[in-house]
């Protein structure tokens, strides 16, 4: 993993650390449960887990304010939980049930929340990038100070529409943060095999968009970078690029045999860079939390996830009438 430019500060409150710990753990336990339900056949189709990348969304959501928007790809469960969507509604969408955010009609890759300003959940690689800039366009048009986060991966970073969007976002000074979640693999193609220039944060230079590389496994570094990017966008300076150096522990989707990397590589990141272990260490070594307190959080999170899974398996399938609803407004 490439070295990140910024390191995190140490003077962070216990409350903040506890919040990061809890939010990241929630995503991890949720995703583990999703994997389990997939294995049981309760979740169908494609299912892309976020395990390993938790610090990215948790750090950025901590920096965001009410009114900011977010849009991402199909690896979207973490983003939804981090912006405050109900784990029950998300899990029930994964199982294709009436209680899901899209009444079971969207599935894992296509989910939305108007209330939480989560604009999907998009299944076409990089399609969310111009959409994210469009949300920013609307903010500027309406004269609000809201900022949109357009998340995409290192694979999407090679799509043409990303650069069409960079050009217009910079030209029109749109308040949009392009978050490149560089988890090193575009499905099975490593960054080295697919990108002529591996430093993705420099991809905006030709358009005059500032960018920085961030240790995406360090939630505090992520949060601080997010604060810098948000300040830049809110002051009317236009878009900003954050390249989050991160790593996904699981396969691209559930049906990925993962022959493109070694088990040792995955194990090394897990043991040396795990974002949750990192915060746990800070909490324990800084004597911010006792083992018992952390265990209580683990238990609480496990309970919420377990209840979400119960809801998602008990919620009925959508009524057949739903086949023909929501096609036209």
């Amino acid at each position, binding site marked *: 993993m490439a070295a990140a430019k910024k390191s995190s500060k140490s003077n962070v409150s216990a409350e903040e650390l506890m919040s990061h710990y809890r939010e990241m753990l929630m995503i991890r336990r949720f995703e*583990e449960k999703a*994997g389990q339900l*997939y*294995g*049981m056949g309760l979740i*169908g189709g*494609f299912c892309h887990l976020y395990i390993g990348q938790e610090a990215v969304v948790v750090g950025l959501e901590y920096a965001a304010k009410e009114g900011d*928007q977010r*849009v991402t790809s199909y690896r979207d469960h973490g983003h939804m939980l981090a912006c405050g969507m109900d784990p029950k509604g998300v899990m029930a969408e994964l199982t294709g049930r009436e209680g*899901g*955010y*899209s*009444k*079971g*009609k*969207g599935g894992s890759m*296509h*989910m*939305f*929340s*108007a209330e939480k300003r989560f*604009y*999907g*959940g*998009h299944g*076409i690689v990089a*399609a969310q990038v*111009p*959409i*994210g*800039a*469009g*949300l*920013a*366009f*609307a*903010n500027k*048009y309406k004269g609000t100070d809201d900022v*949109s986060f357009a998340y995409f991966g290192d694979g999407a970073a090679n799509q*043409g529409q990303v650069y*069409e*969007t960079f*050009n*217009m976002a910079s*030209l029109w000074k749109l308040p949009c943060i392009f978050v490149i979640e560089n988890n090193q693999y575009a499905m099975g193609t490593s960054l080295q095999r697919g990108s002529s220039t591996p430093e993705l944060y420099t991809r905006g230079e030709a358009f005059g968009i500032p960018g920085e590389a961030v240790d995406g496994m360090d939630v505090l570094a992520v949060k601080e970078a997010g604060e810098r990017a948000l300040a830049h966008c809110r002051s009317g300076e236009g878009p900003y690029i954050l390249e989050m150096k991160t790593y996904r*522990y699981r396969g691209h989707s*559930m*049906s990925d*045999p*993962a*022959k493109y990397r070694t*088990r040792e590589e995955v194990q090394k990141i*897990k043991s040396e860079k795990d974002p949750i272990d990192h915060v746990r260490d800070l909490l324990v070594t800084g004597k911010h939390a006792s083992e018992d307190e952390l265990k209580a959080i683990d238990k609480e999170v496990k309970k919420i996830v377990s209840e979400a899974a119960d809801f998602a398996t008990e919620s009925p399938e959508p009524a*057949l009438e739903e*086949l023909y*609803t*929501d*096609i*036209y*407004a």
Partner: protein
Amino acid sequence: MAIQILMPALSPTMEEGTLAKWMVKEGDTVASGDIMAEIETDKATMEFEAVDEGVIGKILIEEGTEGVKVNTPIAVLLEDGEDASAADDLGSKADAGSDTDDTDNGDDAGESDVSTKPAAQAAGDMPEIEMENIPEGTKFKKQTVREAIRDAMAEEMRNADEVFLMGEEVGEYQGAYKISQGLLEEFGPRRVIDTPITEHGFAGIAVGAAFAGLRPIVEFMTFNFAMQAIDQIINSAAKTLYMSGGQMGAPMVFRGPNGAAARVGAQHSQDYAAWYAQIPGLKVVMPYTAADYKGLMKSAIRDPNPVIFLENEILYGQSFDVPELDDFTVPIGKAKIAREGDDVTIVSFGIGMKYALEAADALAEEGIKAEVLDLRSLRPMDTNAIVKSVKKTNRCVTVEEGFPVASIGNYISSVLMQQAFDYLDAPVINCTGKDVPMPYAANLEKHALITTPEVIEAVKSVTYR
């Protein structure tokens, strides 16, 4: 409580697999993320990770076992403090459990007995829509299609600040085809936005703006270039309302000239009517007269759905009577009888109407009274009006400029077979453009398009003259 570990589904289509190798043995402690077994599917050998922590109490399926059905218990995991007897209980219950699963699957199959509507109805099945209301005594003025489109956009932009126009050369250049003439002066660069030449990108930005509550009008210099943006139009704009369970959609208009102009060759001369009309979630209109351009454009801008507005470069300069009303709208999804007759129904839309009307004039001189139906909207399509007319005339010819395979005419023919079979006295004929890329040479181009004599010939054929 002991937990059953079930044979996992490791791909969207996996029903069974081979339990190739156990990586743990009874009595081993496992943590979340540990590799427990290797499982072979038809596609690959995959590692199977533990989700819960505990001690492997019992292995129920030996390694090397083939054809293990998904969800069959393969092992029992003990939690802290449990002994192996808990595993025995669960292990024996497991067999009974898998039987129950089979029964469940049977139920699921029974449930799929859905009385879905036939496809032909899904698009055409629509409530009765009121025809546009033009009060008696309304004055009309001659106006070109170009002016009608501009006036419609300007009126709607005056009505609502959320409406804006974006596209290539729409502002300072005053429109590549002069459609947006004067709009920059009236509304300024905030609402009349010149884009770089980047269809995919600005279409996507407009979709995002629509998600966030604005009402973009996206001008494509021509619909040929919208091919660059078609993913955003279909996957993002058309499908989001459905995929979000009704939470958000894209209230917007994609507009621009469509179909052949003159001598611009294969890449600039395609009619996309049938392409877009196929997509649930889109509305598609393709008007002929300036009045319909104006009224449908205003309706399209107000519509809460993405509307594909197919214009025609050759029609831009043609003049028609347009009612002088403060707020003249034409409902989307309503056809219009352009000319009454009893002998045959000619159904067309857009520039196809030119050939249909010319043919009807010529046929009248030979005593054949053709009824000409202007569809105006292709999705939803006013199939009721087509069926009603054909029940009167018993004959139908469709006219369009697009390619013959999977054309709008093909769809109309299928609707008539299903809904008016007993009324037809002749097979429906689809007059279309030829099945060739548009040639450049003047003589070849003329033949590649639909021609008025071909429409006349088709009508004579179905009327047995």
